[in-house]
């Protein structure tokens, strides 16, 4: 038995299917997973979760099985960040986003695979090996939340959480044919999410449809005293007049897969028609600098955040004894994988004396220009429609040796992350049997627009 939505699942559970049986159907499938989507599945902990919610049938998300990306803390479970360096680490607290979903009735089913410390676009940098694409095992599932997107796509869990720093929820959602939401920066608490780049990180839901993403978001969002950047501000709501659907030229370049370009443009036209609005061609000239800004800021913040991994207080401790500095250097060199070490080195360099203004401050200035450019375009359009990624899921190993090519997978997702905007990837259909996503970008606090337009995409897409 499979379920197409949270609503369908809850209705089945309320009409006679026992919660135990319902959750175990997912657990069975997760335990037989062939895509390497999971890092930890513990039936004993799942049983405890079932017991916790069992008596509260009226909970809004009663017994909904939830996969949690393994850089988000859940007390009692390990958090590895898919890194050797966090081997054995069990956090003593639970992330606010998870806590809120549990209160609403969700049952944590397990922890999903990711790129090491969420750094990557293919889940190939995981110390536990890559996640395979559910539609073609020779291709990647995307990343860094590849495990969460894959597990939802395969029906191994009903919903999952990912984290999006430069596209890590949206791009794997696109590659696995599911919905992935990156909320406005500050709408969902980052407390309990292992920090990678603090001015960019956001937790977001990965689901089978837009309605489920909205349900999870509504329960997760809001002020949290433990994350001072959170806001309880109101959504800006839907536009009052005719819908103006913006199509930014720079997101449909000659170099991308032409079939994705044509399909996404067609979908934009069809939803504009459906909504009785217009497609408006707009320009965001700084788009091509987005990945470079993201590299500088993301790597600088990562080098600072990852300085805490010293093998003293938690995780893998390496060999004991010897000089402190030598031991830490050896431990970090062996404990971090290549992609993480590369980012730490570049991040350290751009923050070092003599280069700080030249690279880091300059990148922050271009970041402001990028944000201003978006805000200005939103004076003439209500949402933007773009492809989520420039390609279909690529082959395993295809980009591993070329870090810049890998980073360019984020070309359409990094700019909105830098600007702190909400954005969502919704399945657009299939090409050559592989899924591609359509991205909707809205002004800050414009999640309602994403959900509304996303549901229209679900109606008009080519299945």
């Amino acid at each position, binding site marked *: 038995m499979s379920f197409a939505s949270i609503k369908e699942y809850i209705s089945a559970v309320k009409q006679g299917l026992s919660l135990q049986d319902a959750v175990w159907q997912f657990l069975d499938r997760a335990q037989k997973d062939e895509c390497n989507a999971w890092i930890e599945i513990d039936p004993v902990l799942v049983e405890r979760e079932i017991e916790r919610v069992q008596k509260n049938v009226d909970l809004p998300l009663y017994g909904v099985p939830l996969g949690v990306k393994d850089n988000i803390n859940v007390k009692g479970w390990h958090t590895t960040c898919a890194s050797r360096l966090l081997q054995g680490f069990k956090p003593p607290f639970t992330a606010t986003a998870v806590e809120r979903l549990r209160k609403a009735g969700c049952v944590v089913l397990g922890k999903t695979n990711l790129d090491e410390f969420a750094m990557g676009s293919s889940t190939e940098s995981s110390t536990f090996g890559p996640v395979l694409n559910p539609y073609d095992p020779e291709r990647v599932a995307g990343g860094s939340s590849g495990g969460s997107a894959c597990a939802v796509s395969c029906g191994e869990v009903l919903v999952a959480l990912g984290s999006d720093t430069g596209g890590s929820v949206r791009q794997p959602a696109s590659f696995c044919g599911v919905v992935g939401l990156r909320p406005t*920066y500050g709408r969902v608490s980052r407390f309990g999410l292992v920090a990678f780049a603090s001015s960019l990180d956001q937790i977001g839901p990965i689901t089978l449809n837009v309605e489920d993403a909205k349900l999870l978001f509504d329960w997760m969002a809001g002020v949290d005293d433990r994350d001072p950047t959170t806001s309880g501000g109101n959504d800006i709501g839907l536009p009052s007049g005719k819908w103006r659907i913006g199509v930014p030229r720079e997101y449909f370049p000659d170099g991308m897969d032409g079939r994705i370009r044509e399909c996404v443009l067609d979908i934009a036209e069809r939803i504009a028609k459906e909504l009785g609005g217009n497609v408006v061609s707009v320009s965001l000239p700084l788009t091509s600098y987005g990945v470079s800004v993201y590299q500088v800021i993301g790597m600088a913040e990562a080098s600072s955040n990852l300085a805490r991994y010293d093998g*003293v207080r938690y995780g893998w401790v390496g060999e004991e004894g010897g000089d*402190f500095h030598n031991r830490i250097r050896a431990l970090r060199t062996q404990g971090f994988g290549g992609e993480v*070490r590369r980012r730490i080195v570049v991040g350290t360099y751009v923050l070092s004396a003599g280069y700080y203004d030249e690279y880091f401050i300059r990148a922050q*200035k271009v970041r402001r220009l990028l944000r201003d450019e978006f805000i200005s375009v939103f004076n003439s359009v209500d949402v933007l429609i773009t492809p989520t990624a420039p390609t279909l899921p690529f082959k395993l190993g295809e980009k591993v040796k070329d870090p810049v090519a890998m980073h360019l997978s984020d070309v359409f997702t990094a700019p909105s992350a*830098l600007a*702190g905007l909400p954005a969502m990837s919704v399945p657009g259909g299939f090409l050559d049997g592989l899924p591609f996503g359509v991205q909707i970008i809205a002004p800050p606090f414009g999640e309602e627009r994403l959900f509304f337009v996303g549901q229209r995409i679900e109606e008009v897409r080519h299945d």
Partner: protein
Amino acid sequence: MDVEKVLKLAGLDIEGEEFLEEIKQILNHIELLKEVDVSGVDPLVCPISHSIRLREDACTSSLTVEEIASTSPQFDGRFFPAGKVMEGEL
């Protein structure tokens, strides 16, 4: 780039040629930012339009020492053993 100095700051050991070549590719890519005119622009540190909210300055409960210590395989009941920090002979 003074590789040795940066690696020391980063708390990492010396790496091979291939690694350094990959670093060079990333550095070439970020050079693109020099094309953008940023004169008169203020840096954007955090992309929020709302103000940062500070909680009331009051005591709240926090994790216990036992809970925090439980994350370290080395904690000896009072300290985290860290190895010799001073350089040279004592």
